[in-house]
């Protein structure tokens, strides 16, 4: 091809297209008569005029503009098909002072990436989206796009787009305009000089909005694809005017750029001391609680079980927490997966000196059964010599095991006497301490403020009382 003289290239473009393979590093890969080159130039000129070339990051999509990064002298990310708005979202969040441009075609934006563009628009991400609508898949050789017109022939609609099987061309601007957040939504065309000038205005407005952190701007550009349409350049411009514009009306659908508030993003806290401060490292005090040397059960494999709402999970968590404060290895595992079948909520708790292997308790040496199904389910898997505590307030039957120690405790009843059924967890915790000899009730009471942070004094008091009542019930009624 004869080398043409370039009078002046906007500074938004790289002088020599070094990323482009092959010898022709001074011209684009686009076909003659294609609209991409015009839109690229409008963007590159605007970036130069507004002195934004260095601050701009352009996201290249999949489609004919997959190689947009060959040309723009900006930061560039080439991304997966349809995902430019998702990538641009993170790029904009990471670099709030930059100008982020998502450049996409109709297949990329309106078909495979349909959800991503809607969601970025709906979040009002600070970015300028340039959407090139040429009603066809150019890069892959002329297949149907979501914006292909009724009756239009493509390589995958050889008989013309049939709306009964293929649906109707999607009016993307109108869709974007249904969201609350976007600040600027417009559709322009490259069909002639007058419309190119209008496109220029739209491009510049969208870029300035991004610079001014106004949020989401969307510019749909009707663009020629002579190769895909099997037309020459002039016929293509004519076809936009006659066929596309009636289906995709031109004009500004929304412009609230002026009144839109600027988007401010926080500065991440990364410093060593600041991070420690937020996590409260210096306020943390290591536990000084001493282990009881004469515990009845030293290695606890416990199942706590009952109806949902009986505080089953919190009983287990409190016990694990107290065990941790005593310096034991602890684990807590909620009923999980298939274990959730059968109408009981249950959890596994292990408290022991050694490293804990399996966290699921399959052979408990202690169970706390808060309702009848739990007693029936778990007493059978207990190891001989273990401790079985059951809630006699709600369970009428007797345990069948005679090779374990039975503790019949009116757990719910004690809580009700204290005035709130919800403290039954702490009644269980107190009773557990008495049965196992592992914890001292006063130590548990001392931990209550940290276990129930933010709760009013009255609630703390009631939980303290519950621990002591549970503990005392066991020591008064059983020899432990």
């Amino acid at each position, binding site marked *: 091809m004869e080398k043409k003289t370039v009078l002046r290239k906007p500074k938004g473009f790289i002088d020599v297209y070094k990323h482009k393979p092959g010898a022709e590093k001074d011209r684009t890969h686009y076909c003659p008569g294609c609209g991409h080159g015009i839109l690229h130039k409008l963007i590159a000129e605007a970036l130069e005029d507004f002195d934004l070339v260095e601050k701009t990051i352009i996201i290249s999509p999949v489609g004919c503009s997959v190689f947009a990064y060959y040309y723009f002298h900006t930061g560039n990310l*080439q991304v997966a098909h349809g995902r430019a708005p998702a990538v641009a979202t993170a790029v904009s969040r990471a670099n709030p002072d930059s100008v982020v441009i998502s450049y996409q075609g109709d297949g990329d934006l309106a078909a495979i990436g349909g959800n991503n563009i809607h969601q970025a628009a709906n979040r009002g991400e600070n970015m300028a989206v340039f959407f090139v609508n040429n009603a066809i898949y150019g890069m892959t050789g002329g297949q149907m796009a979501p914006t292909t017109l009724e009756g239009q022939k493509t390589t995958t609609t050889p008989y013309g787009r049939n709306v009964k099987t293929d649906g109707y061309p999607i009016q993307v601007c109108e869709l974007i305009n249904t969201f609350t957040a976007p600040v600027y939504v417009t559709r322009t065309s490259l069909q002639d000089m007058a419309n190119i000038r209008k496109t220029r205005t739209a491009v510049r407005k969208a870029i300035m909005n991004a610079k001014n952190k106004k949020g989401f701007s969307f510019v749909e550009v009707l663009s020629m694809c002579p190769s895909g349409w099997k037309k020459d350049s002039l016929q293509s411009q004519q076809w936009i005017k006659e066929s596309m514009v009636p289906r995709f009306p031109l004009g500004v659908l929304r412009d609230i750029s002026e009144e839109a508030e600027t988007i401010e993003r926080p500065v991440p806290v990364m410093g060593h001391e600041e991070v420690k401060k937020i996590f409260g490292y210096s306020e943390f005090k290591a536990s000084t609680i001493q282990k009881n040397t004469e515990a009845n059960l030293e290695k606890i494999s416990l199942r706590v079980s009952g109806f949902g709402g009986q505080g089953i999970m919190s009983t287990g968590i409190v016990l694990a927490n107290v065990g941790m404060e005593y310096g034991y290895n602890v684990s807590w595992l909620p009923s999980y997966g298939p274990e959730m079948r059968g109408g009981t909520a249950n959890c596994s708790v292990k408290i022991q000196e050694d490293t804990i292997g399996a966290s699921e308790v399959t052979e408990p040496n202690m169970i706390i059964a808060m309702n009848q199904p739990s007693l029936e389910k778990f007493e059978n898997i207990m190891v001989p010599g273990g401790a079985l505590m059951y809630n006699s307030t709600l369970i009428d039957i007797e345990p069948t095991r005679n090779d374990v120690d039975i503790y019949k405790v009116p757990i719910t009843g004690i809580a009700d006497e204290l005035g709130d059924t919800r403290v039954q967890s702490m009644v269980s915790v107190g009773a557990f301490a008495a049965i196992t000899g592992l914890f001292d009730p006063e130590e548990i009471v001392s931990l209550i403020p940290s276990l129930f942070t933010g709760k009013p004094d009255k609630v703390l008091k009631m939980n303290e009382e519950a621990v002591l009542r549970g503990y005392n019930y066991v020591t008064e009624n059983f020899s432990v």
Partner: protein
Amino acid sequence: MPRMLMKGNYAAVYGAILAGCEAYYGYPITPASEIAESASALFPKFGRTFLQAESEVAAINMVYGASGCGQRVMTGSSGPGISLKQEGISYCAGSALPCVIVDIMRGGPGLGNIGPEQSDYNQVVKGGGHGNYRSIVLAPNSAQEMCDLTMLAFELADKYRNPAFVLTDGVIGQMMETVDLPEPVSEFPDKSDWAVKGTAESRHLINSIYLDHDDLERWNRELEKKYETIQKNEVLVEEYMMDDAEIVTIGYGSSSRVLRSAVDTARENGIKLGLLRPITLFPFPVDEIAKLPEKGIRGILTVEMSTGQLVDDVNLALKGKMISDLYGRLGGNVPSATEILNKISELYGV
């Protein structure tokens, strides 16, 4: 140092904050949702980004974008979500973008269930998406390791400019244990020669396209070399009661916790059982396993919550000198120490 009782899922997020992760992009899925939930609570406290993405696919592409800008960034999910993310992970690998992905495995295939399984092994350890690539894969088996290995994942991801997985199952994610919070990381690698920051000097290109066949082959060879370096330098393995072991069990994640219980019980009964636990799944502890036949081991039993994914790598490492047996439970069922010991007794007559 603060000591807290927390779920494995939470511990991963604490680890991320301490490792200097600046952004979390994720989509909710059981049993990994607490990762997103705790990230949504914690990240804003540090002025860092939390965003609930519109899809798993969007989340991994946001990760791609944040990483391309030089941020330490994380996402978390479970089986079906990881399947959806694979294309984006391939893009990250192809563009040499570091990132951390936490996978809390659940039952599959398809929707499966939310019980714990280890059936994402192949799709995570073997690459998973299209193209010749590997992800670094760390396999924690406790809440403490969920924190520590998440921090290590960020280090390794940056060191090799490669995606790194924290791969575990629902049990480890849902379980609460004691976690001692380590010191926060405050020195970060210099990424100025490739990260795009919206400045004159950072006008780089993040890209995985190599149109020229020779260029793409060369790039693949570079990646291959990187994976060889990772294989050589980064293997982590835990050995328990291996010195005099006559029978060896191999497992990772929650299976390895059950195996530890099995080893303890076996030892009480005079059976010389040992445990070899891969902490890194890629790189795989090939050398450590290859040595077993020379140690006079009578039998090797791989235990996994899948139908034989880990065991393939074990047998590749053994190079035919021995063949590992397999015991697997599925569908959300976790093997018990007793059933593993029964299997060992049946296989090896002990």
